[in-house]
């Protein structure tokens, strides 16, 4: 949902001072806007005034026929600066940040108008923004909060699927980080300002940046784009569950669901953290030092006992896979084709993944079904490895026997030669 909003978001910045776009300020979709604003501003010496004209050629609005006057008003058909920028003709010059949502929303909230640029373009960005922490702050007169141009830029606005765009998936973290990475600024809002630094340690950030996996979550995937707000206690599992469906389903089956709700503990975050979501491992399960169950359970209670059972079942399954893998690898290194055994190991690995999912139910019986499947698969692979080892022994024995026969034959020939030449 948030991703699709982002994709359409650049068009939010298409704004007009008037509810219905005036003829001449908004052209036909797909037709690059031509007007006196860019022609004149491009030739100005003041770089601050020149920059918007230079950025116009890449701007999605400009490329779709929306001229500068679409947001700034005035008369773009006149070559006379005084006429073109006459306040009487609706010229507003610089748009104050408090006015931005309404200005952009004049087009982007207008479903009938936006249909010109594509079917089903979302038009709820402004209304979502009004409900966001940013929008609420703006309504209270806070001018430090993010408005449309804070993320999308004012000029040279690019579609969200353009890798150069500040709201492109892999760049969102830097864009949000411009404010949320500023500790001094964030302290005023009761935030630590280290959220971005934490997120950069996460598996999500690693997937996004090193694997170039654009489906990996970044800030807006959990917090929303325009309706940005922190997920509440109730909604954390919904947010994570958008991608981690199985884990969420399993968690809903667990006794933790009600217990966490009773003590107002956020579901996934309690064990996995929020921004710095790191790679989980089986060692987390337990009540010992650095183990996650220990935050609520202690040695001797039912929870600790259950954690112990889950932990040993997983450790047994992991150990079985590791031991069999080593055996299969050794046979492969000895020249045996071990593809069938590898398929069995793959099955075991998949069953282990399912077993790990069952941790979220904290029910040993459910996990055991999967760890037993791991056992069956590794037993199959072990059997194949044993057959391969027997074959290797047979081959080596065969080789030594044949080498012996060959050497004996060589010796016999040498003796024969000696006898002949004596």
């Amino acid at each position, binding site marked *: 949902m948030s991703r699709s909003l982002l994709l359409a978001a650049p068009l939010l910045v298409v704004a007009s001072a008037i509810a219905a776009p005036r003829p001449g300020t908004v052209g036909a979709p797909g037709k690059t806007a031509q007007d006196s604003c860019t022609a004149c501003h491009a030739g100005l010496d003041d770089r601050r005034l020149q920059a918007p004209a230079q950025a116009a050629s890449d701007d999605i609005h400009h490329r779709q026929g929306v001229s500068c006057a679409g947001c700034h008003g005035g008369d773009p058909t006149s070559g006379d600066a005084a006429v073109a920028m006459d306040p009487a003709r609706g010229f507003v010059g610089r748009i104050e940040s408090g006015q931005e949502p309404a200005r952009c929303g004049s087009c982007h909230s207008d479903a009938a108008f936006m249909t010109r640029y594509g079917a089903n373009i979302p038009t709820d960005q402004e209304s979502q923004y009004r409900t966001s922490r940013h929008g609420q702050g703006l309504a209270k007169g806070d001018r430090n909060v993010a408005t449309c141009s804070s993320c999308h830029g004012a000029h040279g606005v690019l579609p969200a699927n353009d890798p150069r765009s500040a709201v492109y998936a892999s760049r969102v973290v830097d864009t949000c980080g411009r404010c949320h990475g500023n500790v001094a600024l964030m302290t005023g809002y009761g935030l630590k300002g280290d959220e971005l630094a934490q997120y950069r340690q996460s598996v999500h950030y690693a997937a996004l940046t090193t694997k170039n996996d654009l489906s990996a979550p970044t800030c807006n995937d959990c917090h929303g784009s325009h309706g940005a707000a922190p997920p509440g206690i109730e909604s954390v599992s919904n947010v994570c569950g958008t991608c981690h469906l199985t884990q969420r389903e399993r968690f809903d089956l667990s006794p933790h669901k009600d217990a966490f709700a009773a003590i107002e503990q956020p579901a996934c975050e309690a064990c996995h953290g929020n921004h710095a979501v790191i790679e989980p491992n089986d060692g987390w399960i337990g009540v010992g030092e650095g183990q996650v169950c220990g935050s609520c359970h202690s040695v001797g209670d039912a929870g600790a006992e259950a954690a112990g059972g889950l932990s040993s079942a997983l450790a047994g399954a992991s150990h079985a896979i590791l031991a069999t893998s080593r055996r299969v690898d050794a046979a492969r290194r000895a*020249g045996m*084709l071990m593809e069938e055994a590898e398929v069995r190991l793959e099955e075991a690995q998949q069953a282990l993944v399912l077993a790990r999912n069952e941790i979220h139910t904290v029910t040993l019986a459910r996990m055991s079904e999967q760890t037993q499947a791991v056992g069956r698969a590794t037993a199959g692979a072990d059997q194949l490895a044993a057959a391969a080892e027997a074959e290797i022994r047979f081959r080596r024995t065969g080789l030594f026997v044949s080498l012996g026969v060959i*050497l004996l034959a060589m010796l016999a*020939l*040498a003796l*024969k*030669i000696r006898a*002949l030449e004596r």
Partner: protein
Amino acid sequence: MKLATKAWRALDERLGVQGVLELALHKEVPRHRHSWAYYLGGLTLFFFAVQIVTGILLLLYYRPTAEAAFESVQFIVTRVPFGWLVRSVHSWSANLMILAAFAHMFSVYLLGAYVKPRELTWWTGVAVLGLGMGFGFSGYLLPWNELSFFATRVGTDMVSKVPLLGHWLLRLLRGGEEVTGATLTRFFGIHVAVLPMITAALLGLHLTLVQRQGMHVPSSREAEARRRPPLKFFPNFALRDAVVWLGGLAVLAALAAFFPWELGAKADPFASAPAGIKPEWYFLFMFETLKLLPAHVVGIEGELLGLAAFSVAGAVWFLVPLLDRGGASGRHSRFFLLLGWIALGFIVSFTALSFLGVFE
């Protein structure tokens, strides 16, 4: 026994085989410090015989299509009784055969055995080695695995550098613009029909010439050869040959059992080439030299220049019995002896350095 004698007499009446037997029985092999070189040709022949036998066995199961080649080799090494051994022996023996052939050729060259009257023996021998390398190149592709696929792509690409005819040659070799199933079928045909036919003819001639002319005695060892009594070809030399062959067989068995030839992953024409693609070891010296050459040398493409240089060197090597003026008197010149050592040093050092990863 009586029947065998009758049959022999009947055969002799019609074909005069007694003469051949007489030749074998009376043939003598000179003895001197470098007599060991006389066993290298026989060892090459032994590995060639192993290739024929194992090759025929592989033919019973191998299927030469892009869809089935890899799977059929996989079937051979996993399901066919002793298929793993046959395939591994075929691959190892191919390499040992080339190694033995190189050793044979260099010993012949450095001991000056190419001089008159053995020019034809030299030419047929060099040609057979060239055919052996052709066997290696065409056979390498047949398992249709990742490495062989990309190595063949690089190898066949070399011919496209030939001026004027390059593209035509490339298409002829590949059976199209790219290495595909058509290339595989073509290489299979070349490997199991064309090359064996030509090799059989040339090898037959080579062996006949060797028997007809007898063993060459290096000029430096003539006195020693005169002093020492020669060996009878049959049975003394033949028995020694058999010992060497058994040694070759022992090495082959050990290599095949301890280092089974890997099959790798099936070729995927759409995948990107894996890192470190290299041809078979006997092409490495050429491969690395061509890689070292700059892109352009005095306006000519570096690779083209390198290939031209190798072609000229190959031609000189082949024509050495004519170029070596000392050859007419039956003694090779010091200049060509030095050239032989340089060629050997170059091939050995470049191959070794490539194995050590110096060029990477």
